[in-house]
C-alpha cells in the first residue's frame, strides 16, 4: 500500500474527495482487495467509535442543558441588538422623552481595584468595537447626522446629557444600545482624525458626589470616567492614544455645561 492512495483512502472515508477522484478511487478499490479490506476495517472502526462515544456521553445533565439554553438566549439577544440596536439608539436619541428609565442600567456594584463596573464594561465594549467591522448598514448618513446633532436628549425620567463635540475632531461611527451585566447602556463609537477609535459608554448611576475625572488602565486599555448627576460616562481607547484624556475632558465639560 503506497502512501499516495493510502491518503486517498482516508479522504474517501471522510468525504473529502471530489466526484472525479472518488470514482477513480472506487475503481481502484474494485481491483484491489487489500485496499477494500482496509476500507472495511476503517469504516467498521468508525461505526464502533461513534456507537461507543454515543453510549458513553449519554444525555447531557440538566445543568449543561440549562447553560445551553442560556447561551441560546444570549446569542439571540445579541443578534437582535446587532440588527436593531443602532436604529433603537437613534430613535431614542431623536425622539427623546420616552420612558425608558426601566431599561437604563443602574450601576451599583464596583469592580476590582476600585474601578467601577461600568468602566470595566466600557473596556470590553471598546475591545469588541475595535475587533469588529464597523459597517453601519442599518443607519443612513442622514440618521447619523441627526443623531450627532440631536444631543443632548432626555431618556425618560433621567436626563442624559451627551457631549457635543467638534465633528472635525471626532466622527461618530456607531451608536447603539448595549446589554450590560444587568440592564442596558448607550455605546458610542468615534473615530479620531488620526484613525484611533474611541468608545463612550453612558449608563445611569445612583447619583454620588463625584465631580472628578478618573483615568485608569483596564484590560490594556486607557479609560477615563466621570459622573454627572445620575449618569456615568466612560471613554475608552488604546493605551497609546495621547489625546484620550483631552477628549474626555472636552466631553465632560460639554456634558456639564449642557
Amino acid at each position, binding site marked *: 500500500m503506497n502512501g499516495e492512495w*493510502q*491518503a486517498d483512502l*482516508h*479522504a474517501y*472515508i*471522510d*468525504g*473529502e474527495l471530489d466526484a472525479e477522484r472518488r470514482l477513480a478511487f472506487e475503481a481502484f478499490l474494485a481491483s484491489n482487495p487489500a485496499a477494500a479490506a482496509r476500507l472495511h*476495517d*476503517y469504516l467498521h*472502526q*468508525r461505526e*464502533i*467509535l*461513534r*456507537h*461507543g*462515544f454515543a*453510549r*458513553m*456521553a449519554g444525555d*447531557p*445533565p440538566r*445543568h*449543561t442543558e440549562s*447553560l*445551553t439554553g*442560556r*447561551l*441560546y438566549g*444570549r*446569542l*439571540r*439577544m*445579541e*443578534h437582535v441588538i*446587532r440588527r436593531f440596536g443602532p436604529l433603537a439608539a437613534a430613535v431614542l436619541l431623536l425622539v427623546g422623552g420616552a420612558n425608558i428609565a426601566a431599561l437604563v442600567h443602574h450601576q451599583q456594584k464596583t469592580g476590582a481595584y476600585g474601578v467601577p463596573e461600568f468602566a470595566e464594561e466600557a473596556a*470590553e465594549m471598546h475591545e*469588541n468595537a475595535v*475587533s*469588529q467591522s464597523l459597517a453601519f448598514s442599518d443607519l443612513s448618513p442622514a440618521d447619523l447626522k441627526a443623531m450627532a446633532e440631536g444631543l443632548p436628549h432626555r431618556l425618560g425620567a433621567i436626563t442624559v446629557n451627551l457631549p457635543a463635540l467638534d465633528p472635525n475632531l471626532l466622527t461618530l461611527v456607531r451608536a447603539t444600545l*448595549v*446589554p450590560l451585566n444587568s440592564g442596558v447602556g448607550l455605546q458610542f463609537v468615534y473615530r479620531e482624525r488620526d484613525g484611533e477609535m474611541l468608545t463612550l459608554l453612558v449608563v445611569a448611576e445612583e447619583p454620588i458626589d463625584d465631580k472628578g475625572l478618573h483615568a485608569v488602565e483596564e484590560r490594556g486599555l486607557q479609560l477615563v470616567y466621570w459622573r454627572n448627576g445620575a449618569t456615568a460616562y466612560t471613554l475608552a481607547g488604546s493605551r497609546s492614544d495621547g489625546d484620550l484624556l483631552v477628549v474626555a475632558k472636552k466631553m465632560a465639560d460639554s456634558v456639564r455645561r449642557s
Partner: protein
Amino acid sequence: MTFSLRSQLSDHVRTLRRYAMTLVRNRDDAEDLVQETLVRAIAGARTYRPEANLRSWLFGILHNVHVSDRRRDQVRTRAAASIEPLVHSDIAPNQPDQVELARTMEAFARLPEDQRRALMLVAVDGLSYQEAAGILGIPLGTLMSRLARGRESLRADVRGDLRGDRGRGDGGRGDDGRPAPLRVVK
C-alpha cells in the same frame, strides 16, 4: 443566524461533550469542561459574530478553557486512573460485539492525544478536514497524518487485542497503572 440556532447549538454541545472526553478522558471532568465552556460563551456572547462558525467559536473557547485550566495536571492524573473503569462501567464486555466495542474504546484511550483529537473531530463527529484543522490549529497535512496514524494504530491495537496476541497480559497498562505507551505500528 437562523431559527435553527437552538438545534445547531444542541448538536454542537453534543459534539463538545464527546470531544471533551478525548481531552480529559473522564466523564465528570469532561462535563465540567463543557459547562465552563458554556459559561464563558455566555459571558462572551458579544464577541460572537453571526457570520462566524458557531462550532469553531465554541471549540476555541473549550480549548482555551482546557489549556488555561489550572487543574489540568490534576485532571490528567485522575483521568489516567479512570480510563478503564469508565470503559468497563459503560460497556459490559459480555458478548462478542461488546468485547470489540470495549477493546476499541480502550485502544482509543491509549492513542496519543493529538491522534485522539483528530479522530474524534473527523471520524466521530464528521467535521471536514478544513474545520478540524482550524479548530486544532494545525495544517491540513498534519491533520491527515494524525488521522492516518490514529486509524492504523487503533486498527492494529484492537486486532492484536482480539487475537489475544498482545503479549502484555496487563490490559495494556504500565506498571504505574497508566495507559501503556503507544506501540509503533508499521
